[in-house]
């Protein structure tokens, strides 16, 4: 990714997604100012083709932006909206410049009712991408307006998730004829958010260990603490690499579903250990509402199950491996995860 773009987005989020803004939005859901600032920056259109007025970033390029959204605990679904707007543009639809989130799997067997549980950012989204299979068996990917849904709180303090339920497909639904594997896309974007959040958790935890003094020296000087922080660093680095891998397209430009599976499985597995080490090092301070660590660890805990947990995605990869006729794992892995296209930009 272009370092200038990366830095400018990082600076923007440093300014607009401060811990206070995150707390305010979690308290009252009012995102108007933040959205306005992001829209003015143009980043909502980052993945729309240049021809259609966007910046034309591929998923692989946008990875870094998703990562930064997670690193700043951005309390709006910008990462999902970027991708949804791109798919709308592919369909010739100019998507509303409003918060769009993704909820590909409504509850099974609800008849005409579209019942989306624990929709990430559901409390403040205006639109939701839903994959709906009608009782007739017909399948549609659609953008549904939240204004037509029954919205209920999950009851989890600070969470931006909500349950959203449509009695039937509303007339204002926007149908996406040309579509994408939404679950895989949402999973790898979420893995990227997680990697960003882990990066912040690592920085905060290493910083705290360098300041907090016990037994006459910073706790980060004790080997037992150092070893824990090293494990945290390993997991943060591995999750970032996994998420970047998950955002690589296939040679034909379509998203790579199995790479996305790797991303979400690895990040979700790592999140548990990352959170527990960070809190262990911070001790009681880390679980206070006032200290910023919780802004990240609460998200990591939520995100690790959003769009499928480690077990779900490992199973998907396992099914693919076992269905493969390749005699060795190496011969399975290279074409599946490391096909050339999408890496070319790194060659020069």
């Amino acid at each position, binding site marked *: 990714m272009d370092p200038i773009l990366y830095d400018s987005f990082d600076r923007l989020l440093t300014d607009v997604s401060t811990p206070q803004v995150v707390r305010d939005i979690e308290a009252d859901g009012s995102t108007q100012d933040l959205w306005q600032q992001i829209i003015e920056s143009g980043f909502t259109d980052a993945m729309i083709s240049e021809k259609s007025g966007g910046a034309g970033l591929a998923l692989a390029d946008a990875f870094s932006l998703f990562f930064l959204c997670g690193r700043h605990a951005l309390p709006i679904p910008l990462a999902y909206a970027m991708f949804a707007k791109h798919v709308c543009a592919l369909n010739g639809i100019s998507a509303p410049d409003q918060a769009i989130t993704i909820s590909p799997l409504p509850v099974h067997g609800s008849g005409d009712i579209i019942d989306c549980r624990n929709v990430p950012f559901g409390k403040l989204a205006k639109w939701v991408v839903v994959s709906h299979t009608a009782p007739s068996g017909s399948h549609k990917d659609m953008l549904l307006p939240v204004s037509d849904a029954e919205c209920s709180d999950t009851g989890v303090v600070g969470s931006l998730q909500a349950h959203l339920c449509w009695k039937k497909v509303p007339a204002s639904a926007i149908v996406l004829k040309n579509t994408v594997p939404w679950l895989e896309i949402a999973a790898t974007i979420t893995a990227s958010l997680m990697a960003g959040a882990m990066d912040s958790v690592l*920085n905060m935890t*290493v910083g705290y*260990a*360098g300041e907090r003094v016990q037994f006459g020296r910073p706790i*980060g*000087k004790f*080997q037992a*603490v*150092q*070893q824990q*922080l*090293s*494990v945290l*660093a*390993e997991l943060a*680095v*591995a999750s*970032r*690499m*996994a998420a*970047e*891998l998950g955002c*690589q397209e296939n040679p034909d430009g379509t998203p790579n579903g199995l*790479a996305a*599976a*790797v991303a979400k*499985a*690895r990040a979700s*597995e790592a999140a548990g250990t990352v959170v527990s080490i960070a809190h262990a090092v911070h001790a009681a301070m880390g679980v206070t509402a006032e200290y910023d660590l919780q802004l990240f660890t609460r998200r990591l805990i939520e995100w690790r199950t959003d769009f499928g947990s*480690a*077990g779900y*995605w*490992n*199973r*998907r*990869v*396992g*099914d*693919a*491996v*076992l*269905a493969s006729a390749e*005699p*060795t*794992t*190496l011969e*399975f*892995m290279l074409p599946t*995860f*490391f096909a*050339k296209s999408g*890496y*070319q930009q*790194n*060659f020069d």
Partner: protein
Amino acid sequence: MLEPLTLTGIPDHAEALRPAVREFVKTYTEKVPLEQRARSWMGFDADFSRELAKRGWVGVTLPKQYGGGGLDAYSRFVLIEELLGNSTPVAAHWIADRQSGPLILKFGTQEQKDFFLPRICRAESFFCIGMSEPQSGSDLASVRTRATRTPNGWKLNGQKIWTTNAHRTHYMIALVRTSGSAEDRHKGLSQVIIDLSAPGITVRQIGDLTGDAHFNEVFFEDVELGEDALVGSEGSGWAQVTAELAFERSGPERFYSAIALFDTWLNYLREHHSGDSWARELAGHIVTHLAVLRAMSVAVTEKLAKGESPAIAAALVKDLGTELEQFIPFAISEELGRHPGHAVPDGLLRALAYISQICPTYSLRGGTREILRGMIARGLGLR
């Protein structure tokens, strides 16, 4: 803070090497039983190494003028990924190819390069590394084996231990003290090349729990070394050894060591209805980890190719990689044991037993977990 690892591709010129290597290794893997291949890069087969050398695949990163391939770190990555991903016995030339050759190229005299490098590339000269001593393991700077000046060179006295393959290699590159005492730590250490056939050297094999004997004790009693035994400059041994370690810690040998077992288990599952839900999830878990490790390893290779010495990133790959290598036998034995009464092929069980027994060494060789995590902590600015 740590510098992030960025996904990077393997350039075409390096990928171009893959098909020929794969074709060659397949002719080997077809005729060798699994439990032998399970030894991975601990498998020693001098004939196999010479076959590779004939094809130009030993010393690929060494310059052509010395008989090397003149290729870059990416090419070597592709080569060893195929060799290790298919579990071939590379131990005979492994150390010379990975460490000794590059070390001599970087620090050696012209005479040393002219003498050793062509022999390494022809797989005629095999090397081992003399690091650990009875009282110096992780605390490597405390080595006591000493080379003292003589009118014609050096006289070597002391003892090395846990020296892999000292009994079947030709040369050892040892870290020894050339001045000061153990209290001087990193100062006064040097690297010397020792011809293992020289008088005064006794090599004694140490059997391991699997029935193999790859480790050795090596005793030096007034061993006369020539003036030209010194590699690099006197007193720079510690810096030279540290530079080597980035090559040693980040490669595919840190995550493919148990791959023959894993592949055989997968094939066993495929023949038996592809396993239950738990087995399938487990298979996926291992593959997702492998994919990420492989991506990280390529990213470290990029740094090596640029001439950097990414010691901390390499430590990180090794710690995570060996964790997976040790998880594989544990997980497979757990899975197979969930179905008492199923007939599991003996070969699979023998490979499983071997790897289960030997895998604790995966996180010892090349630096223990604790040492690696200490290095990462230093990278984080904590020490």
